[in-house]
């Protein structure tokens, strides 16, 4: 395969940056939709790492795991959006700090 040969290090660096962005978003955003988006970013950052690793060693496993992550992400979004609707109905807002009734 002739193409631009990107070193593995660079891809892993990208993956780590994406993961940290997602993690920071998860920890800092209050809107539940952005939290879900951050989760997607984190999932996909690991997916990138899998694909890169698969390409590096010429194995198909990495791409298969990527497909599985897609499926997990889709399922997660289905559940997550259901929760979003419920939270919106119950609290009339999407701020997760309002949904803190279950405590100590």
């Amino acid at each position, binding site marked *: 395969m002739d193409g631009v040969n990107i070193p593995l290090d660079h891809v892993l660096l990208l993956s780590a940056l994406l993961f940290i962005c997602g993690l920071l978003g*998860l920890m800092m955003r209050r809107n539940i939709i952005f939290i879900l988006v951050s989760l997607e970013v984190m999932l996909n950052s690991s997916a990138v790492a899998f694909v890169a690793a698969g390409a590096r060693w010429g194995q198909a496993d990495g791409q298969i795991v990527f497909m599985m992550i897609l499926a997990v992400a889709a399922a997660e979004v289905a559940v997550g959006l259901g929760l979003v609707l419920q939270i919106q109905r119950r609290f009339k807002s999407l701020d997760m700090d309002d949904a*803190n009734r279950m405590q100590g």
Partner: protein
Amino acid sequence: MLKLLPLIPLFPLISSILLMVTLGKMPKKFVAILGAGSVGLAAVTTLLVGLAFMESGQPYHQVLWTWMQVGNFSPDIAFYLDGLTLVMMSVITGVGFLIHLFSTEFMEDDVSVSRYFAYLNMFVFAMLILVMADNLLLLYLGWEGVGACSYLLVGFWYQNPENGAAARKAFVVTRIGDAAMAVGLFLLFTELGTLDIQPMAEAAKTQWQVGDTVPVIACLLLLGGAVGKSAQLPLHTWLPDAMAGPTPVSALIHAATMVTAGVYLIARTHELFLLAPPAMLAVALVGLITSLMAAFTALNQHDIKRILAYSTISQIGYMFLALGVGAWAAGIFHLVTHAFFKALLFLAAGAVIHCLHHEHNIFKMGGLRTRLPVVFWSFLIGSAALAALPFTSGFFSKDMILLQAYELPGAGPWLWAGGLLGALLTAIYSFRLVFVVFFGEAKMEPDKLPGIRMALPLSLLCVLSIIGGWFALPLSSVFPAAGDHHPSHLIEGISISIPLIGLAIAYLIFLGGQLKVDGLVNSNIGQVLKKFWFSGWAMDWLYDKLWVRPYKFLAYILRRECMDDIYNTIVKFCQFLFMVLSRTQTGRLRWYATSMVFGLILVIALLQGAI
């Protein structure tokens, strides 16, 4: 005939069980017939067995069955009949029957007469087991049995809380002695390997020398049991309060039979006591001091039954004195005559109380001589025997005790002098009772007269109180011979004259009025002494301060269990951790995510060995 022996305790037992299971539904007439009749049958059987025993003259041993078998310890349910047992059985069934007969009239108005006779029959059963047992364990069964029946009968009129308290006191105080006795039995068993009385005495004689430590300790522990049951110093405080029970109960249990169980125990184990001279001396001293203290107390009481209760304590003190100086036969002789005249006095007192609207205070009585002649003569004869006037039964037995005490080398004359002082006091307080109750002006009119079922036992006991001293008890084969006594005429003369002097003093003070003691009594020291003696040498006060209050205080401190505190601390710690950790559950999603991230970082760092 001797084979009939087990029937004797069986009759009262069957009667008692029948009375218990019928729950008081039985007609009163049957109750009386069953209750008194069963003891009567036992008395007749005792007579038959006694005649057969006299013919053979040999101790008779009958094993019924093995009680239990634990290792090499296998006590039997077995009876041993010798002269001592026969004497005790005759007193228990004979005097017991007369008192049962008296009770049928005394208790006929009571609603729970069935319960009364059930307890009383059970008592006779337990007392018979006590004296017939061939081993100390079976004896202990009877010992505890009479204690339980005594508790039930003292608290018979249980609606009054005071009676319940008196019953509890009797039970608890005697229990202290019983604990000592139980320890004594354990000691004897571990040392000698058996509790059968005859083999035990043999083993003790071969194993121990006179004056060894172990027999002294064992005998002192047995003495502890005896002083508890026989109301001697320092465990005597329960007996005056035990007068809360019906009067025939006081006559049977707290005068004639149960309280003499301690005397019987020491006489039965006399071969052990002979190996322990210090324990013998302790017995004599306990007896003498108790008899003097109780006599002083009896001088000051005004409840007719309490006077008799203190006189019982005093007379049992004489029996202990006799046992302590080795006059075994004299002690048992006094036990028998005391059973006669004290039962007579108590029954007569019961008749007075019964006929006088349940009045107990002697100073509210008076002039009953002409109104209740049968009771008067009974009381007079009983008091004469109690005071040991010449030729009454009490005279012979008490004289024997005092003379043998005098013969004891060393402390003998002192014991004799103390005994004489007690005899003088006995004469004074017993005739004080007679003069105050039966002479002088009448202050109350009796509302009924004693019937035949009261008069008959009284008359029979009168006869026994007079001629009781002429019986020769079959004790010579049981006890070592006491040796010949040749007291000087002076000693004998003093012994005879002392009760007469007491009688004269009582007459001069309480009837003639020639001797004025008001000035002496009303002086400061007189008042103090009077109060002191009235309270029974303040023993109850002392025990209250020494034992009851500290015990209550401890109970107050320990009412929360200390062990619980340890477990409660663990619980408190867990609750504290829970409080702290539940703070971290804020319900904020971002907080959870952040803490998870930092936790994860921490775990990875630990795994990498960075920290």
